């Protein structure tokens, strides 16, 4: 008698979820369409085929939190998703029980068994998306690919296309108060597309001097993809409601104080680089980059100051 009544509540077919058409296209997985995309093997015709990355809200939050949980240790995981045209869409991510140190992350042996099992279970609970890439963290030294990362990525691109590499810097994420993430693909060996911009074309990365050697040597072996983020209409509505709880954080934090140490570090870094430039040093540093770095610092400080000003006006007892 009441089974009927109760069961109806479970059902999703009566369109109880407010989902837009575009959500359906993005979140749904049609294996036929996907196979057609893959069969074309467009990445072989154009090594610069994939230009954009779209990352879903859940994948982003999962990756950032996992990267943060590693502390100073590099952690890594895999991303699930699909490809549409020249865009790679990351729908989900999961962590692998593999830890690296410094710029050494090696996924192949230890994580493999775990990965296979995870994917099996994942498919059982209704996920059809295949692996579209891997992510790992660079705690404190920016988003770029080291020599080992480039080699790993190159191997993966040879055998598992389409494949994407994402790097997250959890430390800079915390200090800048915004997500620091980069997405990259490598070029096949001994191949470079004509007129390629180097890594700094898409946002700049300030790389610490002690890593700049590693950064510079391999910088022309890969290219960055334009990263954007998306959320479903359900996420969007949920966020509206979460915001009711989050505004207190926005108002109470003081970016000037929490970031002071990191700001000083960054300024020192700029000083060092200028020294190097004026003494006719290496080529991996450009004036334009330095300018962007200094502007970014100034803007962060401006924001911090503005929020203090606002708070003073509010709580300082009218002056």
């Amino acid at each position, binding site marked *: 008698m009441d089974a009927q009544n109760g069961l109806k509540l479970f059902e999703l077919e009566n369109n109880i979820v407010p989902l837009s058409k575009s959500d359906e296209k993005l979140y749904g997985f049609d294996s036929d369409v996907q196979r057609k995309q893959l069969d074309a093997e467009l990445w072989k015709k154009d090594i610069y085929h994939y230009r954009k990355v779209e990352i879903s809200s859940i994948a982003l939050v999962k990756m950032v939190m996992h990267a943060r949980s590693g502390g100073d240790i590099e952690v890594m995981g895999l991303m699930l998703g699909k490809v549409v045209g020249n865009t790679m869409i990351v729908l989900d991510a999961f962590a692998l029980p593999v830890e690296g140190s410094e710029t050494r992350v090696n996924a192949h042996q230890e994580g493999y068994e775990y990965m296979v099992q995870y994917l099996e279970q994942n498919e059982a609970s209704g996920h059809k998306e295949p692996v579209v890439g891997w992510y790992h963290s660079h705690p404190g030294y920016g988003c770029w690919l080291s020599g080992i990362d480039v080699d790993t990525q190159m191997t993966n691109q040879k055998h598992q296309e389409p494949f994407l590499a994402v790097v997250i810097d959890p430390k800079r994420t915390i200090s800048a108060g915004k997500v620091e993430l980069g997405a990259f693909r490598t070029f096949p060996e001994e191949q470079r597309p004509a007129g390629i911009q180097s890594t700094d074309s898409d946002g700049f990365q300030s790389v610490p001097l002690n890593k700049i050697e590693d950064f510079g040597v391999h910088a022309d072996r890969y290219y960055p993809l334009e990263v954007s983020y998306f959320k479903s209409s359900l996420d969007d509505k949920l966020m509206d409601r979460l915001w*009711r709880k989050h*505004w207190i954080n926005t108002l109470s934090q003081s970016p000037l104080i929490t970031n002071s140490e990191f700001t000083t570090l960054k300024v020192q870094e700029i000083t060092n680089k200028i020294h190097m430039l004026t003494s006719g040093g290496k080529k991996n540093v450009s004036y334009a980059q330095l300018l962007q770095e200094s502007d970014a610092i100034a803007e962060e400080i401006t924001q911090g100051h503005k929020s203090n000003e*606002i708070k003073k006006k509010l709580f300082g007892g009218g002056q």
Partner: protein
Amino acid sequence: MMASSRSFGTALVHPLVLLGISDQITRITAQYAIEPESKPKFAGGVILGRQLESQFELMLSFELNMPERSSDGVPEIDFAHMSVRLEQTKLIFPNYDVLGWYISNSNTRITKEIADLHQRFLNQYPSALLLVFDPTLTGAKDMSSEAGSGGGGSSMSLPISVYETLPPTRVEVSKVLWDGESFDKTEFYVESASDSSIQLEENTAWASRLLPMRISVESGEAERIAVEHVANVSRTTEGIDPSGIVGAIGGIGADSGKASTTKMAVFLSSQRNALEMLHKDIQLLEKYVGEVIAGTAPFDPDVMQLVQRVLSNKPVVKNDDQFDLAMMQEETNYQMASYLAQITGAAASVRSLSQRSNTALLAARTKHAAYVNPNVNMFDGGMSDMMSMFGGHDRFGRHGRAKGFGSFFR
């Protein structure tokens, strides 16, 4: 026993859990739209986290496999699948334990089916929590309008209810029965496995009561930043062209040029939104206090004490010399920093101007060399002198700036 209508426990829900549920529901719905002949799966999963006395921190979740029973289409929990997933999750997050599970419903109430599933879950994990998620985002309103259930004001905006399972007691049979009118139910019970050592009187049953918990949102540092990113930076899918033909690369350059102005705009608008919320909350409190004074609202000592405390805090920062001094120093710091950045920018512009005019001059000279009076070399010398001066200035500017910058934050 006294039947209190609200649990003493608090559920600290992390946004990751909510986003995970939202993602699962979105996928299922989207998949169903593509394959309308298939039957949509049920959205349910396991919640992991930590417990500290009566505080439950709901930190992580993973999806459950919930196949339908072939006989009547009622979903079941695939516990074998669950234990494998649990083992995997524990490898990466060894400090988290199973706290309970979640299911989505068209409101945040418990139905007979959910209660049945919960009963099965309790067999594996006694005293598990139950989170009911309402993807229609309307159920929460029902709960808050209903006196005594839900977290009251604190859960008002979130489309979830979290229920705590109390130890089983003896209750009237009528309370355990589901008679179709589950919408009227204000108390939820789950029948426990009958214990033969306990004598049950007629018309009573051995059952656990499910009590709605107070809900609050909690997030770690990184989580907060990521969630803020989702809230403010991410677009909804409307803006993405699913056909996948992305415009020319020229668009990227244009975007990055705008970035610096929009970043400030994003920052200011988030501050504005926060202030708006503060304003709303103060208005609410003001209204409440007014109503209490007028005698139309019940007096709540907790709320009043908090209001009192906030009010007495206010004058602390008034006429505080130390505070003003610190504030002024900060302002000077900020002004210095932005001047330095501007000087660096100016130096860079001068440098690029000098480089460009050098090139232009050189090109012009080679092109018109044949027609130019060879005696005009005096200008040439003057210009290159100026160039080297610019160059010198430029370096100087940058150099000096960085020094100032560095020493001043140290």
